């Protein structure tokens, strides 16, 4: 995902001279293509995320679209008030980019586990959350974000994730994106709906007997605004099972459940699979920790 991000950012910056990248002293072996090609629009703010985010807002207020880049919780929680007051309240085109979403940095410990970021970002009224499920969705999110400048948060995995789309899809905030249809003849629409890096898990689940009759959909763009269009989409499904590598509290599944509550007539069955707090304070590989938190075929189907 990191490579798709920087390739797309370079391509977009080549045709838009208002794109700026500010990193928080991170991005080794990732951001160099941008820094080398656009040295006047690349800044390393150092280990100072509050200033990085305030700077970004100040530049954005003068017509730039600024991307801030760091890992895990550093560009989000460390500077949450700058995101809230400076970016979101002023409706400025700053995209906060966090690499290592979920438990991608599983071995590095709790400080590097980004499992509460959705909760923070979805509480910001203007914030568009972009949580792509594969590199193709990263490119689609980037194109949408640049074409529709607003406060936004791009949550990336790390590197080497497989593609589940054959081409870059068209995205619309809040719209479920078809990734793998249910078998033909299945008239009851059952959906596995993933956001972020759990798209691969959704595809695995679809290959099990329990979920073989489900369609797999992805929701790479969401937030407080797109919540209002969820009831109409939910009405078209008998059941929706959400997947996310984030703690259950304040996450994607709880967001969808709140949206469903807006429709008293809804008959859609909702089930959310998210991480339990067992992962907090434990280290291990991403797969190990996801399974510990409840996100594996065995834990979901067992």
């Amino acid at each position: 995902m990191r490579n798709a991000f920087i390739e797309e950012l370079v391509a977009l910056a080549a045709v838009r001279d208002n794109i700026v990248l500010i990193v928080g002293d991170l991005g080794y072996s990732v951001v160099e293509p941008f820094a080398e090609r656009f040295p006047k629009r690349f800044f390393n703010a150092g280990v100072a995320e509050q200033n990085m985010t305030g700077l970004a807002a100040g530049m954005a207020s003068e017509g730039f679209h600024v991307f801030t880049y760091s890992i895990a919780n550093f560009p989000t929680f460390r500077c949450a008030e700058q995101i809230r007051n400076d970016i979101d309240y002023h409706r400025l085109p700053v995209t906060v980019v966090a690499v290592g979403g979920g438990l991608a940095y599983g071995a590095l410990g709790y400080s590097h586990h980004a499992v509460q970021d959705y909760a923070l970002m979805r509480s910001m009224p203007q914030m568009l959350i972009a949580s792509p499920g594969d590199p193709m969705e990263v490119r689609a999110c980037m194109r949408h974000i640049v074409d529709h400048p607003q406060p936004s948060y791009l949550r990336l995995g790390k590197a080497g994730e497989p593609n589940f789309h054959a081409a870059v899809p068209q995205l619309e905030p809040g719209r479920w994106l078809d990734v793998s249809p249910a078998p033909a003849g299945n008239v009851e629409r059952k959906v596995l709906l993933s956001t972020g890096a759990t798209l691969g898990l959704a595809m695995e689940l679809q290959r099990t007997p329990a979920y073989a009759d489900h369609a797999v959909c992805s929701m790479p763009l969401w937030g407080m605004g797109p919540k209002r269009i969820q009831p109409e989409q939910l009405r078209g499904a008998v059941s929706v099972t959400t997947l996310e590598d984030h703690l259950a509290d304040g996450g994607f599944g709880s967001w969808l459940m709140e949206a469903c509550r807006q429709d008293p007539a809804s008959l859609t069955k909702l089930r959310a699979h998210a991480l339990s707090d067992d992962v907090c304070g434990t280290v291990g590989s991403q797969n190990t920790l996801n399974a510990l938190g409840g996100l594996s075929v065995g834990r979901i189907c067992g």
Partner: protein
Amino acid sequence: MIDTVALARTVRADALRMVCRAKASHIASALSISDIVAVLYGRVMHHNPRQPDLADRDRFILSKGHACVAVYAVLAARGYFPREELEHYGADHSSLMNHISHKVAGVEFSTGSLGHGLPFGAGKALAAKVRGDRWRTFVLLSDGELGEGSNWEACLFAAHHALDNLVAMVDYNNLQSLTTVDQTLRIEPLAAKFEAFGWNVHHVDGHDHAALGAALAAPAADPRPTMVIAKTTKGKGVSFMENRVEWHYKSPTPAQLEQALAELEASA
């Protein structure tokens, strides 16, 4: 040529009327900066009240957003909006909020939580550098606000990137929320700190308009950002408010307002 002393007197009087009408706090903080904003908007900054979005205007950020009535008053006095609108300060649904609001004509940035203005202002200054624009950014901080670490992050950045188009000012009245700055979280030696961070530091009497004008004037060739440490008196101009911590909170009664306005009138 604008009489900035008279402008400051108008700012103080209107600030007093606003907080009295709205039963609001922070009048002493506004009186502390009234001379600074009068000099900025009266003679230092390039701006046009009829064109708040003028491309090459100088930008002003009030980081100590609680002192907003002084800025609302100076903006009204200079013609950004009718002076009568000040009467809506603090009212339900008013854009004239009790911490400075970008919904008011001429206000660049909303603050209220301290430590946000200098990083934001550094971003504006950096934007001007990237574009090759010559306008300047002025940021007014409080002394107690310097406890926020984000200011020092921005100080490092501005000096490292030679933001000579950034001017920060500290309203140094040595009185913060509960007691003096000295007794709360000591900031001295303040000038030496900023100099060590790589800033061009000026000391001025924050109520001396000639001195403020000279310190805030366009600098000679110097790649460093400018820091103006303005020694001020909290509550300046109203005898019973000067250097009294309670006027961070209290709102003047109508009788106290009359007394305060009479003192201002007598000083003319």
